[in-house]
């Protein structure tokens, strides 16, 4: 059953490999910890969600694993406007 979801998650994951950071929608979070569990470099994403803070950890690989795994759609990927801003400058 959750296999179907996993495949869908894989798609999201690939799309997420861009420059940016992970932003939580705290009201949706129940602190289950699936995000932190799947973080390959052990960032405590769950704590960020509790505090309502974006994951602006310089170690974050922006792999999107936490975004894809969260069963409640708490996390999303905010793309930094780095290139836009430069281009427009």
């Amino acid at each position, binding site marked *: *059953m*959750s296999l*179907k*979801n996993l495949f869908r998650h894989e798609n999201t994951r690939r799309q997420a490999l861009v420059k940016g950071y992970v932003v939580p*929608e705290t*009201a*949706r*979070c*129940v*602190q*289950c*910890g*699936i995000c*932190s*569990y799947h973080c390959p470099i052990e960032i405590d994403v*769950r*704590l960020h969600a*509790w505090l309502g803070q974006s994951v602006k950890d310089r170690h974050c690989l922006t792999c999107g694993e936490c975004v894809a795994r969260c*069963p*409640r*759609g708490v996390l*999303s990927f905010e793309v930094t406007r780095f290139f836009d801003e430069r281009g427009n400058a």
Partner: protein
Amino acid sequence: MTQRFVIIGTGVAGIAAAQAIRQQLPQASITLIGDEPDLYYSRPGLAYYLTKELPESSLFPIRRSALQKLNIGIVHGRAAQIDPDAHRIQLANGQNLPYDRLLIATGASAALPKLPGTELEGVVKLDNLADTRHIIKLARKTRTAVVIGGGITALEIVEGLAARKIAVHYLLRRDRYWSSVLEDEESRVIETRLREEGVQIHYHTQATQITEKRGRVAGVLMQDGRQIPCQMVAIAVGIRPRLELAAAIGLRMERGILVNEFLQTSQPDIYAAGDVAQVFDPLTGYYNMDSLWGPARQQGYIAGLNMAGGQSPYQKLAPFNVTRLAGLTTTIIGAVGNGQDDDLVGIARGDSETWRQLPAAIAAQKGFDINRMRVMVGSQFLIGAIVMGDQTLSLPLQHLIAEKADITAIRDDLLNPQANLSETLLDFWTSWRNDYATQ
């Protein structure tokens, strides 16, 4: 003199209150009393532990050491009695604790149906970590299980047992699943998926007895005389707030402890928050019960601020939950419901009374295959929504409903079966959000 704050219950409401008090009063004495040895863990996370998606070690968001660092005292034990005149709590072990301000955040526990045999070894419920460990242990020796009840918890147990390769029989009293919140077709989608997972659903079925063999579950006897042999019976017919402490001292209560919008009970120095509280909503004039993690956190936090001397009212948002029903991600927001459900007594876990209120609204629907969406369209606002499967519109609908966005401009389109509901909503949300951000 330093003020003494005591909190009964180490669930999310209790933890949020302790943190709020500490934020306000760095010197105050704060003590948490909890009867669970595991202290604070993610209760909703238990469902993922059961399905093997999470190891037990990942369930603990804030550990004992982090609380100790905040100089929050922790007492392991059961609060047995409150003496409001002497401002004192007695624990079951006889220990006494004085308080100036007290928070009751005792949560709720599973209701048991009047069914002979519920005391047998092999009958389980899903309230806490100890229950989850117990189910996992029993699952190793279980080939067949019967699940009785409704709502989210019943299905979480069904999924957990199915993930552990147990043959599951799910008993429903009437003709469909969760009829108080879901519409007919939505129930059918879930039931179809359950059957695809190998779950056997028995409609119009009522258990009359759990049978035994040497003190252990041997089967379930049903009203039509049939018997399902099994080694485990799981019960999820709803929850009851843990009201004993409040009842013994005559706090005002109905289904839960009645509190005003400042989370204060009928005794001024005693507050209540979370699953145990029935909270006054000044907008509607009603006292509401939720069994939702987000509101429990928010209520605990607000209670903490007020116990520390603040005057913050609790503002009830549209109740909201994202859950998985038979593997299908489902968001439920605001008022969507249809009233009664015979598989549940009162409220269930992850549930809100608001969902069952029949909204003064017309349903706009969109459904194909497994992805479904139902939006309750009021005269000026969206009142509720259910999004099943594709979750693209889950967040936009949460925002539009919670913030009471004026939908007058798109109302006709929303109700026009020829118009594209998703596109209409998505376009509207995008421009609404831009306006909202620049306000």
